[in-house]
């Protein structure tokens, strides 16, 4: 069962886990070579994603949830 509170809890625990200096996660700025690859972007194909969203929206009861980007090469 997923209710609003459990979902939020899962989310917060996950966020805190990573934000509280859990330094084993993540890479150094100069180790982002693979993450900088275009196909490693979480939204590498925004057009496909938009088409799929629209398609499944019209055929299924659930939709969305993906949202937002991130990752990438982290270049400044």
């Amino acid at each position, binding site marked *: 069962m997923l209710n609003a509170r459990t979902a939020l809890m899962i989310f917060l625990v996950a966020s805190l886990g990573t934000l509280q200096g859990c330094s084993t996660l993540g890479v150094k700025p100069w180790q982002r070579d693979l993450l900088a690859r275009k196909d490693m972007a979480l939204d590498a194909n925004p057009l496909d994603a938009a088409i799929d969203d629209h398609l499944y929206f019209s055929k299924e009861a659930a939709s969305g949830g993906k949202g*937002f980007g*991130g990752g990438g090469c982290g270049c400044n």
Partner: protein
Amino acid sequence: MQLKTPANALRLGLMAATCALLSPPTTHAADAPEDDGPWQVDAGLLYYKENEGRVRTIEPVVNVRRNLGDDHIVGFNFAFDSLSGGSPNGAIAAKSKIQTFATPSGSSLTPGSGPQTYVSPSGNTYTTLAKVTLYTIQPGALPLDPNFHDRRISFDANWSQPVSTNVKGTVGGHISDELDFDSLAVNGALSRDFNAKNSTVSFGMNAELDKIKAIGGTPVGGSDYAQLLKTGSKSKHVIGGLLGLTQVISREWVAQLNYSYDRSQGYLTDPYKILSIVDSTGNLMAVSSSTAASPYRFENRPGTRTRQSLYVGNKVALGLQTLDVSYRRGKDDWSVKSDTVDVRLRVPISNDWYIEPHVRWYRQTAAEFYHLYLDQVDAIPQFMSADPRLAGFTATTIGFKVGVDLGGNNELSLRLEQYQQKASERFSSLLNLQGLDLNPSLKSAIVQIGWKMEY
């Protein structure tokens, strides 16, 4: 005497000085601004076709994006689609009876302008009257509304820019227009990087306002199909929020976790969907003059819906290959629960070519007011729908995409996929419905050509 220096030392010095004068880094007023990137254009053409004369769609989509410098990014998305074909109207097949339905036609159809009756290969017919199309469905066939056609134009614009070091802001808007549906939405989001950009937390909100203006009037939910209780346009609105966390796990792995929540309110009913009422043998209810004028009812959904979803996405570099795995858990207060698993593996097959197999698996439970049909002996429920989209079903997508890098950041791709829905509740034990598939599988093919370019 300058013994060590070459005789033409002066000239060498002059050449160096000249070189410094005439080469960058001096930025001169006449120089073109160099920091804005090229327009990135992503164009696609989608062809979608369902089995047995159901929906067909052709949809061209164009997405353009440009970094105007200093990460101020502007993007536009334009899509047009045109739908045609038949869509289930919600009524069930009848074993031995020809069923007749009416759908309002576009006002452009006037009596005498063209054929008045049609015969389709299935033996079903439809007749165009003044502003209504009557169509008949042969015994045993799934009632498909043949008059289903629509076109949609949608336009999105968005802008994102750094707000401070580590914080990025995005605002966007969406507008779309269909023959019977208008939608307007705005959204905004903030994201902040932590841990040397290894973690990104995002928060976004969106608001949407829709207007439903069904052709021939918008039915009053739950009313008798024959009484044509209709009103003008109806509206609904949606307010939603999204919390996101993107986390770099390792050099090869980046993950994303999103929680989204939205609440819709207003006319959430599908104005074209109906339900059949059957008697205890499974025959369509006999129309008695006392109660109803037809054995069909317009569907009626609750006036609010709250949806939540939890999404986990991953990108993993496996050598030169890229694995994309995501899972989404969705839940709403209509008791629709869903699970989606999506897996793609991008495999380079040469310097320029890649192939990307794709598998998607989806499952949802039925909405609590979903009924294949209504039973005459029971009281008519307040909320009811026979829309196959609210049924319990599993769906699979299998396909692949091939792409070729044409150089200069141009890429051409082709995607071929097959989508199949199988309902969990398809048969009835009622005598006269036995052996009838009341919610037949949906099968469709997806063909998409894509072209990415830069200029």
